[in-house]
């Protein structure tokens, strides 16, 4: 027993899988102690990109510090000059016949681009329609607007903020050298994975969803393994008519595709009564068949072994023979089957939820529900919000990967012919 455990923990595959899995489990357990926020509370509106957000209102009230960063102006330009404007500058320079080598629209070339603009722009020439492609009034005005924008952002000006109204109004001014420290701003939030379509913090939601999905997997896997083990042991050991009846039932479940069965059951249960546990139980009740079949075949090969015969001759009861002479011999196999059942339970929930047949959406998130929301609100298409679905896919893949890796690791330990 000890040496088996040592072998298991010396198997590199098992250990990699185990570490990935434990990291996920620990994250799920520890994260809520640091971020106590309800994972389903809406923080904003729609998909917000990952990043740190702080209240501009509160930033005004925070103490100000004077700083003069050398690259401040350039940074401002970089963020305020959209790609379309940079392209416009390039087009204009081309029409004027200026030297375009080593100029493009990337961020680090913005400075040179603006320098080239100030050097070449001549308002009178533009008004006289001297440049090809910039002869219409609309185009000429676009150039004039751009010029105004560039010259204004380059100069340092002062912003005035008015509070209150009428006579009571007070004004304060902010210059471009005023800074606030982020942790002094009353309301600031870091969203490492942005928000989903409902404006919920994706990371918090994802951690909670991983936990819920793991629970679904564990419940479904336990039910499937216990049921499969019971059916397999009885069918395999007793044989005869018991075997025929149990295998008939198992065959019915094999013939009907499990997933179709799941969809039908989930649909008939109805969205409102589909809690997490209900979903897990239904998945467990439809996926015991292959465990039962494989346990049965293992038991059949064991039941004629001499040690079982000897146990019978010693007058042991059926229950005792099954639990002491058969079960320990297939225990390693059952553990492996359980790991695969957990993995497939998590995947089944994700598939069903993606189809909109998952647990009810008001209680807790699950990995499948997050995928479903991302799909419904166009995260992969119109919104292009990768943060709302890609981390979810990654977690599903990692869970499945780590569990399967643990399984192959165990297989190598228990099945010496598979060792490299």
């Amino acid at each position: 027993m000890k040496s088996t455990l040592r072998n298991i923990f010396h198997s590199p595959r098992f250990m990699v899988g185990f570490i990935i899995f434990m990291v996920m489990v620990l994250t799920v357990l520890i994260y809520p102690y640091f971020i106590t926020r309800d994972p389903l509370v809406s923080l904003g509106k729609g998909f917000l990109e990952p990043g740190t957000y702080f209240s501009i209102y509160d930033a005004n009230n925070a103490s100000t510090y004077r700083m003069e960063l050398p690259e401040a102006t350039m940074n401002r330009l970089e963020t305020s000059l959209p790609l379309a404007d940079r392209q416009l500058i390039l087009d204009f320079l081309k029409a004027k016949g200026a030297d375009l080598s080593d100029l493009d629209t990337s961020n680090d070339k913005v400075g040179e681009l603006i320098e080239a603009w100030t050097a070449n722009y001549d308002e009178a020439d533009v008004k006289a329609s001297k440049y090809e492609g910039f002869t219409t009034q609309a185009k000429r005005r676009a150039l004039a607007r751009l010029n105004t924008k560039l010259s204004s952002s380059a100069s340092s000006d002062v912003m005035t903020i008015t509070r209150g109204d009428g006579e009571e109004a007070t004004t304060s001014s902010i210059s471009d050298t005023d800074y606030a420290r982020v942790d002094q701003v009353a309301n600031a939030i870091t969203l490492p994975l942005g928000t989903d379509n409902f404006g919920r913090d994706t990371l918090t939601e994802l951690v909670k969803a991983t936990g819920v999905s793991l629970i679904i997997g564990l419940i479904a896997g336990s039910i499937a393994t216990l049921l499969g083990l019971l059916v397999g042991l009885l069918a395999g050991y007793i044989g005869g008519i018991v075997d025929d009846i149990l295998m008939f039932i198992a065959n019915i479940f094999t013939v009907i595709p499990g997933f179709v069965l799941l969809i039908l059951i989930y649909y008939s249960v109805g969205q409102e009564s589909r809690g997490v546990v209900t979903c897990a139980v239904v998945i467990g009740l439809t996926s015991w068949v292959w465990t039962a079949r494989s346990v049965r075949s293992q038991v059949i090969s064991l039941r004629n072994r001499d040690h079982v015969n000897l146990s019978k001759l010693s007058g042991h009861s059926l229950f005792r023979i099954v639990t002491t002479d058969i079960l320990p011999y297939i225990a390693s196999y059952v553990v492996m089957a359980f790991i695969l059942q957990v993995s497939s339970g998590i995947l089944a929930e994700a598939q069903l939820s993606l189809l909109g047949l998952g647990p009810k959406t008001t209680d807790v998130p699950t990995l499948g529900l997050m995928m479903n929301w991302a799909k419904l609100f166009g995260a992969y298409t119109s919104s292009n919000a990768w943060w709302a679905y890609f981390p979810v896919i990654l977690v599903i893949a990692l869970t499945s990967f780590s569990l399967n890796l643990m399984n192959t690791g165990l297989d190598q330990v228990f099945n010496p012919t598979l060792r490299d």
Partner: protein
Amino acid sequence: MKIDEKTNQAPVDNRESVTFGTDRNKDFSKEPLCLSGKDVTRIFQTGKTTTTAVDHVNFEFHKGELISIVGESGSGKTTLSKMLLGLLEPSSGEIFYRGEPRDISTGAKKRQYWKGIQAIFQDPFSSYNVFHKIDNVLLDCINMRGGRNLSKDEKFAMMTEACSFVNLKFAELTNKYPFELSGGQMQRLMIARIFLLKPEILLADEPTSMIDACSRATILDMLLNLRNETGMTVIFITHDIGLAYYISDSIYIMEHGKFVESGKAEEVILNPKAPYTKRLISDVPKIHEPWDLSTVG
């Protein structure tokens, strides 16, 4: 009694020098019937193919007799032994226990039957549950003989006695797992188990075939000692006709599920009638003589 050296020799040549484990002249047919069978048949069916492993065999085993069932691999010996043990139901025919039709329809009746018949299996390495300490095997026997309420010391004394009968020291074996023992030790412990149980009938299914020649002699010796001590009926299943000749009172020769010849050991071996028996006898390799392979079919 030394058997190991003699099993490899031609039985016919050395018959005067053999020390028999039992009184050869005793007529067991006058003893009460212990186990008998009428048209016992077992058919295995997989899909459309049927295999008749045991085909209408009749036998009469008397109390105290040592019977050998001899046959090559696949002749149905083990299937017959499983039916005798009640681990397998005959497809047709009937087995009589003490002259009455055997009734093992319920668990309790089976347990009662197994108090009277016990077995030693061929492979000692697979006869033990590897997850249990060997003490459990012996404790089960004590419990089965109604010794459940004995004190720990009494149980220990019984186990020690049983082990010393087979030249094992229980104090050295206790708390060990089966895989820590050698094959010979394991098989000796199986005999110790029988010593504790003292059944009426012992079925030994090739108990020495997985054991090296040295341990084999010891084990056979112990088995025969146990038989002499308890007077139990022994059904010895083997493929080794030479060995069967030395130890048995009666021999049943089995070919393709049928008994082709049976009778007292002397008669069967010294005057074989069935061609299969002749072949089995000539197949025994003899020292100082070229091996006659002409009869190998």
